[in-house]
């Protein structure tokens, strides 16, 4: 596609439910990243994929968070048993090579009630 696509754009869920966020990177981009931005904060690194492998998961806040990437393309970020502190904008980005300029999607605004 022309840019990084994320869905849904908005998600409202109840505390304790699981959510799945999707990212479709720019075709041909080998590197994929998930960041999140909580209200009033900067972007916080969550996880990085090179191809389908995730060499760095160090930013995932807890074991309720997981992510996978398939076909060196689409990635899903799953949050189990959501908590109110998970409320944030979740941003996906991709780049041709690691460390290169990142192209961001518009994000998923997650609200946990």
């Amino acid at each position, binding site marked *: 596609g022309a840019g990084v696509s994320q869905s849904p754009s908005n998600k409202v869920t109840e505390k304790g439910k699981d959510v799945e966020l999707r990212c479709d990177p720019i075709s041909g981009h080998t590197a994929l990243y998930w960041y999140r931005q909580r209200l009033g904060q*900067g972007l916080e690194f969550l996880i990085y994929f090179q191809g389908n492998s995730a060499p760095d998961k160090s930013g995932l806040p807890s074991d309720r968070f997981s992510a996978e990437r398939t076909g060196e393309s689409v990635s899903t970020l799953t949050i189990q048993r959501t908590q109110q502190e998970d409320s944030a904008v979740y941003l996906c980005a991709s780049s041709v090579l690691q*460390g290169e300029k990142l192209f*961001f999607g518009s994000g998923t605004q997650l609200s946990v009630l």
Partner: protein
Amino acid sequence: DQQVKQNSPSLSVQEGRISILNCDYTNSMFDYFLWYKKYPAEGPTFLISISSIKDKNEDGRFTVFLNKSAKHLSLHIVPSQPGDSAVYFCAARNRGGSNYKLTFGKGTLLTVNP
């Protein structure tokens, strides 16, 4: 521990004047710095970058200055235009094995008044 700091949450300037956005960092392992611009309900978009081997990079109305000894960089926009109104994020990349990871500041909201 914030490694990239943007101490001004907001800045307001008149159209046609210069906008100067500042950023400080603490990690001496950072070797590459970027500025991103973000409009509401959109993802950040890359604006301009600078390598640590340079002290200035210019692209049209945008210039980034790097002062390594002070661990400080700034983004100059001149002349400022109303369409420049957005949140500006400073980001830095680590030299070495984790060079895929960007560390972002909290952002500065720039408002350019007509």
